C-alpha cells in the first residue's frame, strides 16, 4: 500500500465497508440463483475500493449519482442493506417499494440520486446536481460515477463542456473495469487513457489505482478540494476490475479465467488491505474476524428481510406516477 498513512480506525472502517459490499453482493448473487431476484443484477464485486475511498473523501450534503452497478454505492452512502436487498427481491420493504429494482434506488436522506439504467444518462444529471450547488453557492460537490462503456456516450461530453464552461463542482469518476459488457476498452476506445478524455474541455484528469482504497481516498481528497475551491470539474479514472459477469447471465467468453484469477490473487482490494493491517500489526486476526462476523449478521438479516417482506400491494401499481400539485 503506497499512499499516505491512515489511522488504524480509518483503515478498519474501510475494511468493514468493503467487506459489507463484498458479502452483500455474494448473497445477492446467491438469491438471484435461487430465483428471488429477477431481471438484471449487476454485481460490484472487485470494485469495492472505489466507492469506499471516494465516500470517505466527501462530507454529508455532498451528492452521489451512478449508473446501474449501484449496490456498492448505496451501501457506501449508508443506505440500509435490508432495504437495498428487499428492493432487489421486489418487495414492499425495498427502498423504492419494490417498484425500481436493482438499477433504480434513491435516497434523499443520504443524498444518493440513483441508480440509472441508461448508460451515460446519469452524467448530465450529476452535472445538474452540481449546477444546483453552484446556483445556491452551498459549497457542495457531486460525485458522478460512470463506467468505461459510458465514457463513449455523447452526453458525457456535452456534460463535460457545460461543467467546464460554468465551473461546476462535479467530480467525474470513471470506473474503468476494463469491459463494457463484453467489449474491452481496447476494442471500443480510440483514447484508452480515459482520464485524458476531458483534455479538450480543459478538465484535468488523473489515473488512480482503483483497487487500493487508500490511493482512492487520497485522490478523492485532492479532487474534492479542487472542486470546493471553485476550479470546476475534475476527472478521476479508477483502474479497477469486476470479478463477476456484466450481469448475471454472462457468457464469460471475452476474457480468460486466468485473467480474472490474476487480479483476484494479486490486486484484490480487501485482501490487500487485510494483509496491510495484519502485517503492519494494526489489527489482529481476531479483530478482523469480529468484523467478518458482524458483516455476516447484517447480510443474513438483509437476505431474510428481502425474502420475508411482502410484495407491494396491488394498489401500488397506480401510485407515485405524479405528485399532487398543491
Amino acid at each position, binding site marked *: 500500500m503506497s499512499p499516505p498513512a491512515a489511522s488504524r480506525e480509518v483503515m478498519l472502517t474501510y475494511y468493514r465497508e468493503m467487506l459489507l459490499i463484498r458479502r452483500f453482493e455474494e448473497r445477492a448473487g446467491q438469491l438471484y440463483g435461487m430465483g428471488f431476484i429477477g431481471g438484471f443484477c449487476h454485481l460490484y464485486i472487485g470494485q469495492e475500493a472505489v466507492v469506499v475511498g471516494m465516500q470517505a473523501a466527501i462530507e454529508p450534503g455532498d*451528492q452521489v449519482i451512478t449508473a446501474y452497478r449501484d449496490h456498492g454505492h448505496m451501501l457506501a452512502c449508508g443506505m440500509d442493506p435490508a432495504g437495498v436487498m428487499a428492493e432487489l427481491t421486489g418487495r414492499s420493504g425495498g427502498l*423504492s417499494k419494490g417498484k425500481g429494482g436493482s438499477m433504480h434506488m*434513491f435516497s434523499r436522506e443520504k443524498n444518493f440520486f440513483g441508480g440509472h439504467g441508461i448508460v451515460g444518462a446519469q452524467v448530465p*444529471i450529476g452535472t*445538474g446536481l452540481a449546477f*444546483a450547488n453552484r446556483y445556491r453557492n452551498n459549497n457542495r460537490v457531486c460525485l458522478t460515477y460512470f463506467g468505461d462503456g459510458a465514457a463513449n456516450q455523447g452526453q458525457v461530453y456535452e*456534460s463535460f463542456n457545460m461543467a467546464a464552461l460554468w465551473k461546476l463542482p462535479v467530480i467525474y469518476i470513471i470506473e474503468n473495469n476494463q469491459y463494457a459488457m463484453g467489449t474491452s476498452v481496447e476494442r471500443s476506445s480510440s483514447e484508452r487513457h480515459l482520464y485524458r478524455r476531458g483534455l479538450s474541455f480543459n478538465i484535468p484528469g488523473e489515473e488512480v489505482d482503483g483497487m487500493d482504497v487508500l490511493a482512492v481516498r487520497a485522490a478523492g481528497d485532492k479532487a474534492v478540494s479542487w472542486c470546493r475551491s471553485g476550479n470546476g470539474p475534475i476527472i478521476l479514472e479508477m483502474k479497477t476490475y469486476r470479478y463477476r459477469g456484466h450481469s448475471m447471465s454472462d457468457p464469460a467468453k471475452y476474457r480468460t479465467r486466468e485473467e480474472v484469477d490474476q487480479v483476484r490473487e494479486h490486486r484484490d482490494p480487501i485482501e490487500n488491505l487485510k494483509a496491510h493491517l495484519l502485517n503492519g500489526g494494526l489489527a489482529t486476526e481476531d479483530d478482523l474476524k469480529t468484523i467478518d462476523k458482524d458483516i455476516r449478521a447484517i447480510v443474513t438479516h438483509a437476505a431474510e428481510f428481502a425474502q420475508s417482506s411482502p410484495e407491494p400491494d396491488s394498489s401500488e401499481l397506480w401510485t*407515485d406516477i*405524479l405528485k399532487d*400539485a398543491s
Partner: protein
Amino acid sequence: MPTDILMPALSPTMEEGKLAKWHIKQGDRIKSGDVIAEIETDKATMEVEAVDEGTVTDILVDEGAEGVKVNAVIARLKGDGEAEAPAPKVNGTSAPLPPQPAPAPIAAEPPRPAPVVHQAPPVTTQDESAPGTEFVTQTVREALRDAMAEEMRRDGTVFLMGEEVGQYQGAYKVSQGLLDEFGPNRVIDTPITEHGFAGLGVGAAFGGLKPIVEFMTWNFAMQAIDQIINSAAKTLYMSGGQMGCPIVFRGPNGAAARVAAQHSQNFSAWYAHIPGLKVVAPYFAADAKGLLKSAIRDPNPVLVLENEICYGRSFPVPKTDDHIVPIGKARVIRAGRHVTLVSFSITVGLILQAADELAKAGVEAELIDLRSLRPLDTETIIASVQKTNRLVIVEEGWPICGIGAEISAQVMERAFDWLDAPVLRVTGKDVPMPYAANLEKLALPSVTDILDAVKKVTYA
C-alpha cells in the same frame, strides 16, 4: 430599367414589419452588399443589403414606418448610364429577395384579412374570469414571457436555460428582457447541446431547483427525449415516490412555415403517451400564460407545446397579478348543438373559422379547446358529445396513433350510444412535411377539410 427594392421577409412567417432605419438617401450610389436599411419585426431585427448596383432615385417608405407589407416597394434604383426619368411603376424584376408572393404566412390557414387582434371567442360556458375582470391585449409571446417573469419574481429557484434565451433575447423572442431583469445566473445561454442540457435540467430539479428548459423547437428535443422520458418522467415511480422532478420543458411544436420535414414535426401524441408527464398545448394567450405559470409551480415534469406561428397573435389576457389556468381542463370556447369540434394549439384557429362558416349555413358547432393533452379532459368532450351526438377532432399532427385516435377510442368506449355518426378526424396528412408551398398546404389540415368532415357527420 429602374429596379424596385422590395420589403424583404425576415422569416417564412413574417407578413409585415417596421422599416426601422434607412442607411441610404436619394442620390446615393450603392453597390451590392451595401447595408441599405434595418428592418424590425416583433421577433428580430435585420440589416438589408443591396443586391443591385445603381443610384437611389426614390425612397418610398419613411424611416420608422410600421406595418410595411412584405414585398411592398420601399425604394427604387436606376442602373448606371440609365436616363433619370421618373420610373413608371414596374413589377419588381430584381429585389433583395425573390419577388414572388410572400410565402403563405400562415400555411395552416387560408388567407384572410389580417386582423390585428384575434378577438376573444364568444364564451358561453366555463368562462374562468371573474365578472368585471379587465383584459389587456397581448401576443402569445408576451404572455409566455410574462408568465416566466412573474414566476421568477415569485420563486428564486426558478431559472430559464436554453439556446439563445439570454443575450439573443430568445430565438423567437419569447425570453425578451428576462436576462436584463434576472441576470445571467438565472437566464442561462446553453451551448447547442439538447441532450446534455435536458439532463442537466433534470439534475438541477432533483437538486431542488425549478428549471424551465427551452428547446428552440421541439424538433431538436428528439436529441433529448431519453432524458425527458427515462429520467424526468419515470424517476418518481422508480423511486417509490421519493424523487420528484419539478421541471418545465417548453418551446414551439409542430409546423412553422416552409421549414420542411425535419423542422415541422408535431410531437403532441408522442409526449401525451407517457405516464409521468403532464402536457399542455394552449392556443390563446391567456391560456398560454396561465398554463405556463401552473407548469412552473407543478411538482412534476410539464411539457409546454407552443406554436411558432401563434407567437405573434394577439388575444385578450386577464389583467390580474396571478392568472393561473389549471392543467388538465379543456374549455368550451363556443357553445353549439349540432356538432362538436375538438382541437388544441394552432388548429383551434381553424375550428373557429370553420364554426363561422358553419353558422352561415345554420349549423351550430360546439368548440372545445383541449388546452391540456395529459391529463386529457375527456369528461368535457363526452359531455359535449352527449349534447351534439357528433364529433370531429382536428389536429395538426399525423393521424396514426394521434390525439384524435385516442379521443375517438375513448368516446367509442364511453359514449358509444350517444353517437349519431362515426367520429371523424381531420389531421395532418400521413407524410413527412414537404417544402413546396402547395404541397405543404395540402399536408396540413384546412378549414375545408373540417367543413367536409362536418358534412359527413351531419349527413348534410
